[in-house]
């Protein structure tokens, strides 16, 4: 992402909103996975990981990122803080 471009842009302009919505729509189209399905996938990932690790389920993020025409699914799964972990 070119940051001059970000700088130039007034926040929340129609242009910015359209660009953000479009990026998201394209990511879902390209992956052939609807936003609702992505949520289901996220819940399943949380369930699987929780079987092995204590995670902070509320803070899990699963999103698409785009690099040119390459899409990847990025999951950010914070572990629960060890101090709070039950003995």
């Amino acid at each position, binding site marked *: 992402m070119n940051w001059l471009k970000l700088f130039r842009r007034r926040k929340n302009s129609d242009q910015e909103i*359209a660009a953000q919505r479009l990026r998201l729509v394209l990511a879902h189209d*390209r992956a052939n996975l609807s936003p609702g399905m992505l949520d289901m996938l996220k819940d399943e990932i949380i369930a699987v990981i929780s079987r092995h690790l204590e995670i902070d389920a509320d803070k899990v993020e699963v999103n698409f990122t785009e690099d040119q025409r390459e899409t990847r699914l990025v999951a950010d799964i914070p572990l629960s803080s060890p101090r709070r972990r039950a003995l």
Partner: protein
Amino acid sequence: MAGKIITISSGKGGVGKTTITANIGLGLAMLGARVICIDADIGLRNLDVMLGLENRIVYDIINYIEGRCRFRQALVRDKRFPELFMLPAAQTRAKDAISIEQMKSVAHEAAQMVDYVLIDSPAGIEHGFRCASAPAELVLVVANPEIASVRDADRVVGLLEAETNTPARLIINRIKPEMVQRKEMLAPEDVVDMLAIDLIGLIPEDPEILTASNRGNPIVLNNGSPAGKAFLDISRRLQGEDVPFAPLKPPSFFQRLLGSH
């Protein structure tokens, strides 16, 4: 050597495919190339009126495929450039009246005669689009700077990548520079960035495009206008010239006073 076969597609309807085919076809002819424009929008013939050639039609592409005329008889010669021809679509036939193999063979036959064969694709991503893009060596994907159109263009790019691996270049049509400047419209850079294919043309919104095609004299014939120049620039780039992309400027105060915008 056979001519280059280029298809103009968009996915979404009404974004300017036929306008662009007519103007680039004429543009290439103005530059001295021999060109055949094929109207592949079976049942919804439009290229003839855009080029102002509707009164000269005798046969159409299906008459030729069915063996009712010879190839050259089905071609309509342009009244301005004797080396520019149009092959009309059939107006009263179903969209799927032509098979992919038939379209390929027609396009290759055309390519034997001229330097460029331009194919005006119908909207959609079904049979008509597949037929029109099957013979292409290059597809010009047309998008308007709006979410729905870019999304559909992305489908076209994806299909081409997945199925035929045909190279694609992007034309962004109907740009309103003053709206881009006010950050009210997607910027061309963003669209190029998202679709991730090389750009070949930026065409401004210009009401004269409509009035010019109303008269059957596409705007490229008046290449003093920004839109006319944009079309001629695309024709030049197709010929391999390295034409820089001039930033589109909003109409000046005086141009607005004169009422041309």
